[in-house]
């Protein structure tokens, strides 16, 4: 059973969806409320499918995000790799937490991700922005529960499909 490998299709499709959501135009005022979708999806899959999703996946997603945002190439990739590694390191513990603690852990990871991006911006001499960066993290915390429910749904479907055929 544990030898069965999940098809990564679900993972990549959800990452693609997160990338799309990350660039959907929002009004200026709502910009601070856009959760960091890609970070959330990477954290989720690293938690629950650590064999498929890890730093390498995070790196690819980060590069894609850098291209889409036009930011420094490698900036989001660096942040996501580190966050993904941290998640991987602690995924066995975090997975067993009650939901609210998982949310808190995810919130911390997202904050760390935002901090790394912020840091890279500062070093590169780009505008580091103000409040929106951090309010997005808060929005991510709020959106974590529904996002997790949605991704759980996807994951269980994929796993059940696999079991049926296995």
């Amino acid at each position: 059973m544990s030898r069965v490998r999940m098809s990564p299709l679900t993972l990549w499709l959800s990452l693609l969806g997160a990338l799309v959501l990350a660039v959907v135009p929002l009004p200026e005022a709502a910009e601070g409320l856009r959760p960091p979708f890609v970070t959330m999806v990477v954290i989720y899959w690293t938690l629950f499918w650590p064999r498929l999703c890890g730093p390498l996946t995070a790196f690819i997603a980060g590069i894609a995000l850098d291209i889409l945002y036009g930011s420094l190439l490698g900036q989001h990739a660096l942040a996501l790799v580190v966050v993904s590694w941290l998640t991987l390191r602690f995924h066995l513990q975090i997975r067993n937490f009650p939901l609210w603690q998982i949310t808190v852990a995810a919130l911390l990871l997202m904050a760390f991700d935002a901090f790394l991006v912020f840091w890279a911006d500062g070093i590169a001499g780009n505008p580091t922005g103000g409040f929106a960066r951090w309010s997005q993290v808060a929005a991510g915390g709020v959106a974590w529960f529904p996002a997790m429910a949605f991704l759980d749904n996807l994951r269980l479907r994929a796993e059940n499909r696999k079991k049926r055929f296995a």
Partner: protein
Amino acid sequence: MALSTPDSEPRLFSGTGAGVRLVVLVTVAIVLMVLDHRNQHLVQIRGLLGAALYPVQEAVDAPFGAVDWARDSLATRDTLVVENARMRAELLEQSGRLQRMAALEAENARMRALLESSADVGDDLLISEIVAVDMDRLRHRVVLNRGSANGAEAGQALIDARGVVGQVTRDRGTSAEALLITDPDNAVPVEIVRNGLRTIAVGTGDLERLSLPYMARNADVKAGDLLVSSGLGGKFPAGYPVATVIDVRGDSGEPFLSVSARPTAQLDRVREVLLVKPRAQPPEPPPAAPPADPPKAPVKPVVKPAAGAAPAPQGTPAPQAPSSPQALSAPQASPAPQAIPAPQATPEPPATPPTPSPTATGTAAESAPAAAPPAAPAAAPPTGDGAPAPEATPASPAPPPAPAGERSE
């Protein structure tokens, strides 16, 4: 449930091996960042990846395009008739104005020939659409649906119906990235229409505001002044409206006025833009100008190298945006991405800013900030009356602080 899933077992090496992967990937990321930041080595890679990801952006844009399409195709006849009538009226008015344009252009060319300055050639326009995607929140960037495949090039200026919008920074084949004039990294060389005073308008990160940081305290500027692009630096073609001054404040103790201006283009609403493609060669250069200048340098020393050395008149950014995708690296890596870069700046050891251009005599006196500090070269050179053209100025000293488009990328 979760724990019994096939892929939930930890990898054997999730403890240590993952650490190695982490180090490798982090190193790669940092190397990429340094390369991208420092040397613009990654232009090609960025172009490729950008082209690969363009479908994502197109997918995001599709619903907005569909709305546009629906509005066009579901419009009632009455709406169309009304719109048509309005456009007809507009067209009539515009062509009425254009009638005099030919005569004025010819007259202008003759005058310039008399002044021995190079001609202001016309521009070609290419229509493009802004793809409706958000990019970096703090930077004002947009994606265009035209790339080198459609004739767009990095370095071209973007305008809408009312003024300058920005400039193309990265070409991605079938799409391109552009920087709006309000991006904090962008600077547009401008001049005040009323008196020809030149300065630089720098983006603030606010879509409604540009700032003019290099105006000396005694500079002649007031709210309501229209700023047009001066054409210095070669990135933005001369003569397009950029912004209107809305506020001038001089705090005592500050060496410069703090001046803000509102862009004339509708940066937050615009969807269709024009890419301005300067004609590479002046169609018929005013006969006198180019040949005459090399030998005698009585009038404007600074203009010579531009007209003499390079055929390109420096109203046009020709040298910056030669062509082709890989030319992309050229403008950005080129020595002077500064506000007053290229053509005329390079060949000449900078004339000192205060050198009065000979045409500027009495008329400019009031607009001449007497002792402009070195940081304000653009504000400093007193200019002659109204329009003695960008070329006439000692434009050379590239101002160190001025970030012209895409300084740190």
